[in-house]
């Protein structure tokens, strides 16, 4: 194949994809519901398998001009399929609003409306959301239930449990090495072998048989799906098309037909197979954060053999990878509005991990590591998230290359993760060093072992730690609703030091933490009851031999798995405690009770204004001031200790994270004024970043402050956002400055290797450009920025979030 025409075709494909706007697609919901109607009474996992098979056989398939890798999620690029089995009510209630949302809107065609009209009565009372809501109402004590917002799934403004309200589990990285070795036919054969080997004396054998039968049914669908592309490509090749494109269509047909009979033999077949698997995972369920793992590693043998045999050139491989990355941007997901606010910008959190180490501890960099980075720089799209693992032997050349890609991509990719933190942290969970070295990032920052960890997001919970401090300061009551779920042991005026205040905070934390057990278990159990995922299960280690769907947990996977619990607002809590220490206990300018009154008045009056100025001038987290930073360390450790007292439903452990998506905006809205000088309703600091504008001592000071948190406790990752003016990496005329790039690399190495930071990511964009984009969104429609663990089009974000990103201190020189 000639790479000239390839790059032309891929360009054409890119343009074709970019023409589409996000929309909703009715097909999946329609076919799935039809299937469910006819399968009443059958075991749930079989109903589900049949429904998925029918979707794969009945949904439309298309091949866009120029795409070298085929397979679509819905009837158009960027159309989100619908998953009524998770929630029907939000679709019914929000359908008219969805096209009019200020951000994350979708076009809604008339077929969608008709289909929802037709299916809604079938689903009322049967969905995941209905079941979860019912169970929560059974379990929560009355007082807690009164504070529980049934629409957004927030408990007293402190715990957000809505992540999984209308969505499946996701958060896995399949074992793509195994899939590549066996192909779909090979996995199907394993399933059939297991069926033939069933042990009749095992009391669970019927359950195993059910699961295996479900996988078999889904695989019928999978193979028909692939076959449909084979047929379509042949048909299109027979039509009136130009020669280059006809050649490619015939190749597509050939690739598909090879995948129907066995494992992939070439790089292109391997990529196509991975794409089919990734795609079908997105059709089976709508759980996000389904990630790709270490693509440069498992694809390398195919690339290397192709190059050796002269079947492919580097340039051709680059075009295929570009196509693969563009395909990621054709996928989409619609969430209820309440959930959308926590993650705006259409994220799917699909992550590719590059670099790092081999199981025996050598540097794993190969040519594909560079090619993936180059492809990323060329396509400049928000999806997928590409991250680079950094360790003490990562070649400087690779880091220099990656930083240049960061400049070229411009949208915050790649992000950088530390092997030096993550591998030991995984080993602390009891994972061997060989396996730990195989980790990859799922979603934003979750460190998992591909094929092994079931990230068990079950019911993710987000903790608003700053709100918890506000409640502590109000003797256990939430000023927004006057509910007092748990009174502090002492009145605020009896507290004599910050340590005593922290003691009360800890009591509150202990009280609220208990709720994560039912909130997560209920979701997990509901997954297993209503929406098992046989296809996803078939791609994970042990599940076929075990004969157990991943939604059931259990088995050897438990050792690797961790249910996500996030803590938000750590910077604000640390800053607030330090301000209290200074103003209340050291300078004795006012009592804690007076302080509380001032906060309740949102810093009102002359006194309030003066105090706020004082509070703002007290050093903050992010400036390498030990006296403040120590509170970030203390509070994050408290959080860890509390959560670790409990275990999630499916075995394994809770895995903590201080990353916070875009939750800082809605959580800020629910939090009154806080001692750090924050106004009522103002967004919290994002992730583990300093509060915007408070980091005044330069980037090294931020890195130092952040590194004082013990990151090895946070297996689901911490995210640090830093925004740089482009001049930090370029010369006065916009060209790349090699000396600056090298220093930047050294800064990264210091943070990730010497200071043991978990992760860091950068936006290299000036405030002027962002402001212009706010003014003229159309002109800047392609401007990508790193938001939290994901990138998104800047203009597609919540305006409040846009403002926050602009406010992030711009580091220049």
């Amino acid at each position, binding site marked *: 194949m000639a790479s000239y025409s390839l790059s032309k075709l891929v360009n054409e494909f890119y343009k074709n994809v970019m023409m589409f706007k996000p929309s909703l697609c009715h097909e999946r919901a329609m076919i799935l519901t039809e299937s469910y109607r006819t399968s009443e009474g059958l075991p749930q996992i079989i109903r589900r398998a049949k429904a998925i098979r029918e979707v794969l056989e009945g949904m439309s398939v298309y091949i866009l001009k120029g795409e070298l890798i085929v397979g679509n999620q819905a009837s158009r690029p960027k159309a989100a399929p619908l998953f009524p089995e998770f929630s029907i009510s939000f679709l019914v209630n929000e359908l008219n609003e969805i096209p009019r949302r200020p951000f994350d809107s979708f076009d809604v065609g008339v077929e969608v409306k008709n289909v929802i009209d037709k299916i809604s009565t079938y689903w009322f009372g049967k969905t995941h959301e209905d079941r979860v809501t019912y169970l929560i109402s059974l379990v929560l004590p009355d007082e807690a239930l009164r504070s529980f917002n049934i629409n957004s799934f927030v408990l007293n403004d402190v715990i957000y449990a809505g992540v999984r309200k209308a969505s499946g589990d996701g958060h896995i990285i399949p074992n793509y090495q195994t899939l590549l070795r066996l192909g779909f036919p090979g996995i199907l054969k394993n399933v059939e072998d297991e069926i033939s080997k069933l042990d009749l004396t095992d009391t669970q054998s019927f359950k195993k048989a059910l699961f295996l039968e479900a996988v078999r049914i889904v695989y019928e669908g999978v193979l028909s799906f692939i076959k449909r592309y084979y047929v379509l490509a042949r048909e299109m090749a027979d039509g009136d098309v130009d020669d280059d494109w006809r050649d490619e269509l015939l190749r597509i047909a050939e690739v598909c037909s090879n995948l129907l009979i066995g494992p992939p033999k070439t790089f292109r077949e391997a990529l196509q197979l991975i794409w089919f698997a990734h795609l079908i995972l997105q059709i089976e369920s709508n759980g996000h954060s389904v990630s790709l793992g270490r693509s440069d590693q498992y694809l390398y043998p195919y690339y290397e053999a192709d190059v050796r045999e002269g079947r492919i050139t580097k340039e051709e491989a680059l075009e295929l990878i570009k196509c693969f990355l563009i395909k990621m941007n054709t996928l989409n997901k619609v969430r209820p509005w309440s959930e959308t606010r926590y993650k705006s910008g259409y994220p799917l959190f699909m992550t590719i991990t590059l670099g790092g180490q081999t199981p025996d501890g050598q540097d794993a960099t190969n040519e594909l590591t560079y090619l993936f980075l180059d492809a990323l720089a060329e396509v400049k799209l928000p999806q997928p998230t590409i991250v680079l693992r950094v360790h003490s032997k990562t070649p400087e050349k690779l880091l220099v290359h990656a930083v240049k890609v960061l400049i070229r991509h411009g949208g915050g990719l790649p992000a950088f993760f530390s092997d030096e933190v993550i591998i030991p942290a995984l080993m602390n969970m009891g994972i061997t060093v060989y396996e730990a070295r195989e980790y990859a990032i799922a979603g934003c920052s979750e460190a998992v072992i591909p094929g092994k960890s079931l990230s068990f997001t079950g019911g993710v919970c987000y903790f608003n730690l700053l709100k918890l401090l506000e409640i502590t300061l109000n003797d256990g009551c939430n000023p927004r609703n006057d509910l007092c779920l748990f009174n502090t042991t002492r009145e605020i005026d009896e507290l004599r030091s910050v340590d005593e205040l922290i003691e009360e905070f800890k009591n509150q934390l202990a009280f609220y933490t208990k709720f994560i057990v039912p909130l997560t278990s209920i979701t997990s159990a509901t997954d297993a009851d209503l929406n098992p995922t046989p296809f996803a299960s078939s791609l994970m280690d042990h599940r076929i031999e075990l004969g157990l769907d991943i939604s059931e947990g259990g088995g050897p996977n438990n050792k690797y798995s961790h249910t996500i619990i996030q803590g938000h607002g750590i910077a604000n809590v640390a800053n607030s405690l330090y301000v209290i220490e200074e103003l209340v206990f050291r300078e004795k300018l006012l009592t804690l009770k007076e302080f509380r009154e001032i906060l309740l008045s949102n810093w009102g009056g002359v006194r309030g204004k003066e105090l706020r100025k004082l509070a703002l001038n007290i050093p903050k987290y992010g400036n390498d001031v030990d006296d403040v930073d120590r509170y970030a360390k203390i509070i994050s450790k408290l959080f860890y200790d509390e959560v670790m007292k409990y275990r999630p439903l499916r075995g394994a452990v809770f895995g903590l994270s201080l990353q916070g998506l875009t939750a800082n905006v809605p959580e800020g809205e629910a939090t009154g004024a806080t001692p750090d000088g924050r106004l009522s309703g103002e967004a919290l600091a994002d992730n583990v970043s300093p509060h915007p504008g408070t980091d005044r001592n*330069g*980037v090294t000071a931020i890195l130092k402050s952040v590194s004082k948190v013990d990151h090895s406790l946070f297996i689901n990752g911490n995210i640090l956002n830093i925004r740089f003016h482009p001049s930090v990496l370029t010369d006065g005329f916009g060209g790349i400055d090699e000396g600056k790039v090298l220093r930047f690399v050294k*800064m990264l190495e210091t943070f990730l290797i010497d200071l043991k930071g978990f992760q860091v990511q950068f936006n290299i964009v000036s405030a002027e450009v962002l402001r212009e984009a706010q003014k003229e969104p159309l002109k800047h429609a392609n401007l990508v920025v790193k938001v939290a663990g994901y990138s998104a089009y800047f203009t597609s974000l919540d305006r409040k979030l846009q403002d926050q990103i602009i406010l992030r201190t711009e580091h220049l020189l």
Partner: protein
Amino acid sequence: MQIKGLIFNIQKYSIHDGPGIRTLVFVKGCPLRCLWCCNPEGQTPQPEIMYYRNLCVSCGMCTKVCPRGASVFRDNSVVYNRELCTSCGACVRVCPTGARKLVGKYVTVDEVLSEVLKDMKFYVRSGGGLTVGGGEPLTQHEFVKELLRRAKEYAIHTAVETSLYAGPHIVKEVLRHTDYLFVDIKHVDPTKHLELTGVSNELILSNIRYVLSESLVDVSSFVIRIPIIPSVNDDYGSLRGIAEFIRSLKHEVSVELLPYHELGKHKYEALGREYALSNPIWKVFIPSKEYLESISKFLTSLGVKLVST
């Protein structure tokens, strides 16, 4: 009692001021008055107030606290009288908008050092360290020397950015603890130098020869910087003069160009001073890439070894 110095900034992650990642300490006070100076707040040897009128909302808070009557209300707006001001900083603490800034702070060597030490790991990784600039570090040579000496005790790489406008014994003392040196040559003609910077250059040029002949720093760690101020000091005659001087040195030294920019222009107003180059007689402009390339070519053709640090 520890010796104190007057500094006006400590900047982390400095990447223009010597090898690797550095912390740059800005010493306040300078005997020169270069017309293009982008750190005019570093020139006077006392703390002073910068007053950004554009940020002032005329709230009058400063007038209430000023003990000197240096900030007063007149016709609904605030008038600041620098003559009366003692830079006590009372107004800075109350100003709600940040319109007032106090530049210059007396600090001990220990205080500076503890800040510098915080980035030790970055220096070790990147081969960076401490740079003392300003202002003119040699105006506070005892403080600077002590700071450098103490930094060397921690094996921190040290650099100094100076005009070398000081007595040779002072130069020698400070350089005892200096690993890397940046010196500016702004012009070779003494009269012209006087016109552009307020002082003659004889001392500077003889100090350059002195530093090299005595090997006070290694020649590989010695960089001469030429500020390129279009139509002010960059005519070919002037450049040729500088090149000839450099060629006449017994060593091959590295030379770096510092292109003119106007990022410090707004500070003059905040200091209540005029920006001399605003006067159209100077015809100064910000050089383009091509413009600088042609100057580089010219200097290279005269045998000057250009680098970018």
